[in-house]
């Protein structure tokens, strides 16, 4: 064949339709924004109920995580995500969906190595890199006496 892999990659790029960003980006903005607005609403309700600012923020996160876990179980979260893309990925609800979906899916491989282990397939890296970054930050703070 007289076509090189590079030329073919160019051909393939041309033949492949791109994502319709004029649809996906506004959808992500809208749904992501609404989830955050809901978070703000919950936060205000909890603060009105007498919680401190930090507590209200924590309880808000827990509420959103619970709601997303439930929607995942009901097979609804992926339907919203199909429209919203990053709008349902980036908020804490996406983290929850990332925990629940593999746990549910791999239950058939057992409760320990299926559900238990696969629960962290998507969320695990987030925790690993988040915590490592925070520990590095803590050491820097300590060494340079920035606290």
């Amino acid at each position, binding site marked *: 064949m007289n076509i090189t892999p590079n030329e073919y990659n160019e051909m393939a790029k041309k033949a492949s339709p*791109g994502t319709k*960003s004029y649809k*996906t*980006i506004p*959808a*992500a*903005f*809208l*749904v*992501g*924004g*609404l*989830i*955050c*607005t*809901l*978070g*703000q609403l*919950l*936060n*205000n309700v909890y603060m009105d109920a007498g919680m401190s600012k930090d507590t209200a923020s*924590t309880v*808000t*996160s827990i509420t959103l*995580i*619970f709601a997303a*876990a439930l929607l995942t*179980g009901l*097979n609804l979260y992926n339907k919203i995500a199909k429209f*919203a*893309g*990053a*709008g349902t*990925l*980036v*908020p*804490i609800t*996406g*983290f*929850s969906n990332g925990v*629940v979906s593999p746990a*549910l*899916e791999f*239950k058939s491989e057992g409760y320990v190595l299926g*559900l238990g282990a696969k*629960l962290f397939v*998507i969320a695990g*890296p*987030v925790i690993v*890199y*988040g*915590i490592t*970054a925070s*520990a590095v*930050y*803590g*050491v*820097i*703070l*300590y060494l340079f006496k920035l606290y």
Partner: protein
Amino acid sequence: MMEYLYAFLVGGLLCAIGQVLIDYTKLTPARILVAYVVAGVILGGIGLYEPLVEFAGAGATVPLTGFGYLLSKGVKEAVAEKGLLGAMTGGLTAAAAGITAAVVFGFLVALIFKPKDKSV
């Protein structure tokens, strides 16, 4: 009312950036989540995220960058209190509620529900 608008705009914007990354880069969703959390730790560490949280409330705390910010905030407080040990305890302590909630609810939902065919 303005706080809801700010939450909507900032939260929406953070998500829109994520969508740009999905559409125009080879980054997979898992990598984007990791990048957001680490970015949150860094922005929190250099003091840029705090003002955003003041301004946008849940618009800044609900996205995963907020999770990273929470980790950095926890570490900062713990290091001030316990010294070097705080670098080890601060992050997880601050994130404990979120991680535990996700694990426990994840476990319960996985126990109760059955996987379904999303193709039908």
